[in-house]
């Protein structure tokens, strides 16, 4: 069998064609970015999930994850102001991902234009004087809250060497479903949550602490012998409502109090004075410091 051996021009042409092909087709592990907010919202529409996962969707709707953008608009506006006025930078994707990679993970799939749309909407939702226009901006931003695909797709693998595959839904197990699924080993572990609830490094080298709790979980709790995962306390009993510091029952389980007190007569210069000796023990059974964000 004869083998074709390209000459120098042939190699160059072949390389050029390959580079063009690579540029046109995204790598298997990366979703192509979209250029409008409408496309982004359509790609990550949780209503599709709701049709089969109704109870989980209902739980999630009551969670703070479901308000991660709309509950933080004041902070987002303050951050944009800080970027523009203090740092004299554009609130571009690099800057905005410092907030939105966690508050709205799906925006990773959007290009620079999508980010401009989002920045304009945050300003409209907070600066505007027309209440109807502000409400409309909030409603438009609402689908960006941490939803189904934020965790089960965009953050599904937690592994830069194994980025999530487009359209695949990651879970603790790779069950049969009408959509592609894959088991992700991080899904039932604290590592999953640590992608956002931990120190976050931006592409430009800045790190953000944001009073998140994973460092405390990893170093103080695990380091002292703790074995429970985030999910053990924040998902086991109330599922995708992700109860936290606003759940009084959970807080009561995490903080302990004991009180001992005895009377005591303190003698000062031969005279007795009434005293009480009080011992109060406050314990933290949570898997992280308390309080924290």
């Amino acid at each position, binding site marked *: 069998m004869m083998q074709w051996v390209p000459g120098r021009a042939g190699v160059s042409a072949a390389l050029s064609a390959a580079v063009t092909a690579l540029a046109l087709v995204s790598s298997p592990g990366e979703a192509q970015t979209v250029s409008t907010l409408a496309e982004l919202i359509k790609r990550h529409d949780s209503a599709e999930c709701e049709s089969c996962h109704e109870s989980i969707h209902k739980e999630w709707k009551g969670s703070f994850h479901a308000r991660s953008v709309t509950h933080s608009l004041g902070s987002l506006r303050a951050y944009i102001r800080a970027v523009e006025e203090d740092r004299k930078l554009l609130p571009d994707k690099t800057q905005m991902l410092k907030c939105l990679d966690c508050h709205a993970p799906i925006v990773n799939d959007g290009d620079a234009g999508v980010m401009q749309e989002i920045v304009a909407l945050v300003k409209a939702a907070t600066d505007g004087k027309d209440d109807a226009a502000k409400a409309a901006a909030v409603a438009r931003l609402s689908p960006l809250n941490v939803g189904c695909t934020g965790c089960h797709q965009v953050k599904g693998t937690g592994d830069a060497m194994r980025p999530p595959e487009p359209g695949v839904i990651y879970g603790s197990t790779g069950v049969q479903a009408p959509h592609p699924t894959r088991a992700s080993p991080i899904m039932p572990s604290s590592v999953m949550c640590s992608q956002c609830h931990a120190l976050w490094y931006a592409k430009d080298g800045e790190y953000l602490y944001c009073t998140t709790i994973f460092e405390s979980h990893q170093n103080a709790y695990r380091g002292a012998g703790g074995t429970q995962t985030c999910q053990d306390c924040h998902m086991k009993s109330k599922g995708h409502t992700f109860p936290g510091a606003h759940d009084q029952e959970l807080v009561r389980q995490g*903080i302990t*109090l004991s*009180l001992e007190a005895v009377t005591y007569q303190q003698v000062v210069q031969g005279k007795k004075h009434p005293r009480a*000796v009080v011992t*109060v023990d*406050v*314990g*933290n059974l949570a898997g992280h410091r*308390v*309080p924290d964000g």
Partner: protein
Amino acid sequence: VVLDVTARNESGRKVWSHRKIWQELGVDLHSVQQVKSWEIKNTIDLSLQPRQTHTERLLVPLPEGTRAAEIEAVITYQHRPGEEFVVHRLVKKLPFK
């Protein structure tokens, strides 16, 4: 997280109190955020650490002639001023002979 320990005399009047606060990074003693989230870099951690018990040992001076005292310890979780709830409340009654 706020611990309030108070002592009341036999007529119910508060005669002594003590407060200890464990606070979130970047907020003041009233849970009001003082530093924006992205500005928190070099932190002082004043929170309650996991798998640890904090002990407050207190010598409570009571007014002369006190015949009985009621010691109360209350843990409150305060998200922000006005948004708080009592986590635990314990009371001990102490008679003076």
